[in-house]
Structures are given as structure tokens and as C-alpha cells.
């Protein structure tokens, strides 16, 4: 299993392939690996955090914090042969938990908002439509359990494989898949209730089952 996930990491980060293979035995090597992965990982970490906390703007700052914290924590990193991504996302998870605790879990989640400025008038309609989608999705995510949301964030935000997610959460890949399945089902139901249309392929699947 380890071999497989290593291979994925190497494929995902061609520039860091060498350091993915080399054993990160000293803090300096770990730091170098963190810096090395920054470019490729930053968008994924950002997305993961955005899904967890429901705000893309705050996610930008937090994502940067993750890497700085990883540098500082390099002395405590133990190379178990797993990709360093898993470790970085664990740090991201801890940061998210801190952040949510600080904010108060029951507080209303700030809706996901884009940071782009699109001035031209022709895109206003498109933008509105997307803003609605974002609001809907955000509300729907609120209906998930914490574990479900975490699996969704790790699988679709961070883009990690089921087995890597499982290792991080202390579950097997099947449990991860089950959580994911349940989460998607839930999202689909909630979104359907809100009037968001389903793509035909998914609707077809529903009819079949």
C-alpha cells in the first residue's frame, strides 16, 4: 500500500520526485521537501481548508500558515515511507480544528466567496449564478457530519486517494469509501431539495438504485 501511494505522490509532483524517494532523515531535508512541494500543494491545501471552513479568503491565509508550521515542525517529522503530503494535510487538519474552535463551532459559517474581481458587465449573470451555486453548496455541506465533511475535503479538496485518507483518519479504505458515498448521497438529497438540478448521469444512477 505504501508503495502505491508513494508512486502517486511521485506522479503528482514530477519536480519533487527525487525527494519523494529519498529518505527525509534530517529536518533540513524535510524543510527542503516542504519548500519543494509548496507550488504544487498550495492550491490543494487551500481547497481542502476552504471545504472544511467554508471560506476561500480565510483559507488563503491558513494555507500559508500550514507550510510555515510544517517548516517549524520539521524536527518532529518521522519518515515512515508515506508521502509527505499526508503529513502536511494532517498539519492543515490541526490548523482547521484550531481555527474552528477559535471561531466557535456553532457560529454561522461564512459563505464560500470567490476572490476574483470580474468587472465586465457581460459576466454578471454568470457570476450571480455561480454565487448561488456556492451558497447552495455551502448550505448543503453544513448538513454533513464532521467525518463526512472531512472525507469530502480530503478526497475532493486535497485530491488524496482513499487509502491515504484512510491512513490519515485511522480508517480503512472501505470505510472512507463508505463515508464518501454517504456524504455524496446526503449532498445530493439536500441539493435536490434546494432545487439544484442533477446531472443526468447521476440521476440515472439514482433511478437504477
Amino acid at each position: 500500500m505504501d508503495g502505491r501511494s508513494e508512486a502517486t505522490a511521485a506522479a503528482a509532483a514530477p519536480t519533487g520526485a527525487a525527494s519523494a524517494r529519498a529518505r527525509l532523515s534530517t529536518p533540513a531535508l524535510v524543510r527542503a521537501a516542504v519548500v519543494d512541494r509548496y507550488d504544487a500543494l498550495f492550491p490543494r491545501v487551500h481547497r481542502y481548508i476552504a471545504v472544511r471552513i467554508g471560506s476561500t479568503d480565510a483559507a488563503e491565509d491558513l494555507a500559508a500558515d500550514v507550510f510555515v508550521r510544517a517548516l517549524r515542525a520539521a524536527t518532529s517529522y518521522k519518515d515512515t515511507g508515506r508521502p509527505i503530503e499526508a503529513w502536511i494535510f494532517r498539519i492543515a487538519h490541526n490548523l482547521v480544528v484550531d481555527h474552528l474552535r477559535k471561531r466557535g463551532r456553532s457560529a454561522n459559517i461564512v459563505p464560500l466567496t470567490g476572490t476574483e474581481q470580474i468587472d465586465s458587465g457581460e459576466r454578471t449573470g454568470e457570476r450571480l449564478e455561480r454565487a448561488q451555486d456556492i451558497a447552495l453548496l455551502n448550505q448543503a455541506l453544513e448538513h454533513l457530519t464532521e467525518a463526512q465533511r472531512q472525507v469530502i475535503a480530503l478526497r475532493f479538496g486535497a485530491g488524496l486517494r482513499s487509502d491515504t485518507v484512510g491512513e490519515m483518519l485511522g480508517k480503512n479504505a472501505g470505510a472512507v469509501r463508505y463515508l464518501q458515498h454517504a456524504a455524496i448521497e446526503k449532498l445530493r438529497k439536500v441539493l435536490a431539495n434546494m432545487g439544484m438540478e442533477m446531472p443526468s448521469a447521476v440521476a440515472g444512477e439514482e433511478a437504477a438504485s
Partner: protein
Amino acid sequence: VSTHEEQAFLLALDAAIDALASQAPTARTAEASSAAWLAGLLDEAIPAPSTTAKARGKARLLVALATIEQEEAAPALARWQRWFAAQPRWALASGAAVLAVAAGTATMASAQRSLPGQPLHAIKRASEDVALAAANDKAQLASLNMRLAAERANEASRLLLAGDIAAATPLAQSMAAFVAGAVLASGGVEDPAQAVALAKELAATAQSATASLQTAAQWSSGGGQDAARHALAEASALYAGAVEQALGVEPAAGGMGSVSVRVSLPDGAAGTLLSTEVYRPSKGWQRVSAQDATTTVPATGAGQVPVATAPVESGTYTRVRLSFADDPGEANAGTGTSEEAATNVVETRRPFSVSVDTETVVSVDLTKQTPVLFTYPQDDAPPPVTPSGSNTPKPQGTAPQPPAPEAPPGGDAQDEQPKAEPQREVKDEQPKAEPQREAKDEQPKAEPQREAKDEQPKAEPQREAKDEQPKAEPQREAKDEEPKAEEREAKDEEPKAEEREAKEQGSRSSSKGKRD
């Protein structure tokens, strides 16, 4: 339900899913499709982080790294630096003078030219450390960092030219770290006028630093190119963030100038340009092409095509964004992903200034995969290509194109297109875009571009050729036979010769602009 039972249940479920998947591919497909549905939804809902945020994060990361390494490696040095920082400047100045006398001015001078690995280099680095520690305020610190970044770029270039790629790479990284230092320091400058002046200084220094690295990269062998390009991309992202941050406080300008955008597409590529925008940090995006008008950029294969001209406030702008329509033929013939975004957006980041009552010509070169932005004062600008034929682009986009413009890349349009011969030759020698698959987010996604690399307009095999053709080979050949620096010169000079002619056509040059 105990944990044990739950585990057993989940294991059984997992097995059942696997069994189902192997028996009925439809189940697997359904699962995959619902995952794809959610992934698409999230893609829509969560925009990629802004490049500025990414650059700022990188700056923080590099600074943290430098701090940690310094603390770990040389706590004594850190003490020295604190001590230096506490001394009055005159004491340091006289100390430096004593040092210079003791070491001999000639020694100091040759130390300044030394490269890593040479004995005198330690003296050079030590004097840099002294200077950094002695910096009095943020502005000074920022420009000093910038100067050191330029120095590292210079060293890296020399090592690249000498073929010592292994030694050049850490230098390029150190250059990025100094840029990061400049970013941080300039963020602390409070006086707006000073911040703007600083940003302009950063612009000038970074431009020359990146130019020297670029030249060196072109001359050195493959590995060196990659290393240098990587460092360049890093540094320019950091630097763009710095400039924007500093310019965000730029006071309102006192007049209007104008900006004219020109685009050069690769051979055989045609595109429909939906909008052209420029970005000014204090004002945001601003459209310079006419509203609701599209411009067809023909497949000239050479030269600069004017796409938009508009009056804008004078000041410093940092980005240009071109939104191309997806070619309809492309989408249908592709892998069936017709739900892709309707536009291909190309964004370039290199600051340019617009002065009062002058026209600044901005040329976006899309013949390479990573867009390069050149700015010229009006007088030096290469002449725009004035394409004949049905799809003549108008600056300003004053003539709205038909609503469904058919512009197949490298299709029949290419055959009909008359080509500007002399310029075309130059373009042909130019290195093709490297197959740089690093998934940089700044990289343009414009498909037609890549496709256009094939010069032969083949109907069927063209697409295959795009995917399979190993681009590394021809590229290397071209490089060995024809040093690229010369090409660049040739490219820059040739158009200038024709400049008069273009001016006499008087397409739109009402003013004799000068960029500052």
C-alpha cells in the same frame, strides 16, 4: 453497535463494492460519475487561490526557512547581526573603511566579482551581511534585498554560462529568497510616495535580473534551462506580488494616457478574443477592448496584431488579461468534454507604466507556451501586422465580428492568410515552447496555441501530431544551430527597421509616446 462490528460491516461492504464493481461495470461508473459530479461542483464553488496570495505565502515560507536555517546553523552570526543592528551607522561605516584598508581595495573589488566556491566569495557574503544588518529602515532594506537578488542572479547567470548547473540552482533559489525579503520589507514601508518609488525600483532591478538569467538559460544546456526557468517563474511571481502590494497605495494619477495591446500568436493559430483587460493594483481590472465586441486574431504566424487601444489613467499597470473564446471545432473534436469553460484566459504579469498624453504599446507574445510580455515606448515598437482578408482585426474591436466566428486553428484560414515574409522567418527560428509540464497555474491553457505548433495544416493527423510529437528534439537542434540571443536581437531589430513604414500608415499613433 460496537466498533468491532462496525469494522466488520465496513469490511464486508468494501468487499461487496469490489465484487459489484468487478461484476457490473455500471456500478463503478455510477460511483465514479457521482464523484465527478461533486468534484465539478467544488471546482465551480472554490476558485483557485489568487496568485498574489500564493506569492505572499511563498515569501513567508522562504523567509521562515531562512530564519530557521540561520538560527540553527549560526547562532553566533545572529548575535553578530543583532550587535551590528544596535550600532550607530557611523561606527559601521568606519569599521567597513578600516576593513577595506586592511584588506586592500583591490581585494575588495575582486571579492565583488567572485563566484561561490572561490576564496574571496566569503568576503563578499560577509560584506553583504554587514550591509543587511546596517540597513536603517524598511525601504533601505527592501532595495538592498533587491540588489542582492540581482547579484545572485548575476552569479547564477555566470555559473550557468560556465555550465555549472549544480552550483547555479541554489543561487537562483537564494535570489528568490532575497526577492521575498524585499517583498516583506516593502510591505512595511508606510509612506505611499516612497512605496511607489520603491516598487519602481523593484521593477527595474527585477527586470534586469530576470533578463540576465533568461539569457544565460538560453545559452546553457537543458538542465540549466529548467533550473533557471523554475527560479524565474518563482521570482517573478514573488515580485509581481511585491509590486502589486506596493502599488496598491499609489495615489490617484493626474491625467490620461492610452494603452495599446498587441498580440502575436504562434504559426497557424487563430483565436477569437472576447476581451482585453489591464490591471492596475489600486483600481483593479479595466477593459480596454470595446464592450461586447470580439476581435478575431488571424493566423498570421508572425508579427504583432493590434487588438485593443483605449484611453486609460496614467500610472503603473501590472497585468494584461486576454480572454479567448474556445474554438467550437476544438471542443467537439476533443475528448467529449464539452462542459469546459467557455474561455481560455491568458494572463501576463510584467508591469508597465502609462504616462500622461502618451500611448504605451504592450505586446503579448503567445508564441511561447508561457506568455512573455514586452512593453515598448511607442517609438521602438515593432510594426503591427496589417492582415488583409476577411477577418481583419480592428484595434478597439470597433467592428464586431459575426456572432459565431469560425476560426479553426490551422485550418483553411491559414492557407489563405498572407504571411509577412521577413518576420515570419525570424519567428520560425524562434524556439518552440518547451514541453514544460510543471502545471504552473500561470501557464495559459489555450489549446489552440499548442496545436498551432504544427505548421503544416493537416486535416486529420494534426491532432495526433500534437500529442505524440516529441518536442524536445527539434527544439534542441534549433538551439544548437542558432544561438537564441541572436534570434532575440534579430527579432527586436528587424521590426524596428520597418517601424517608419508602419508609422506612415498612421494606424493609430497620434502621439509620440514615451514610457518612463
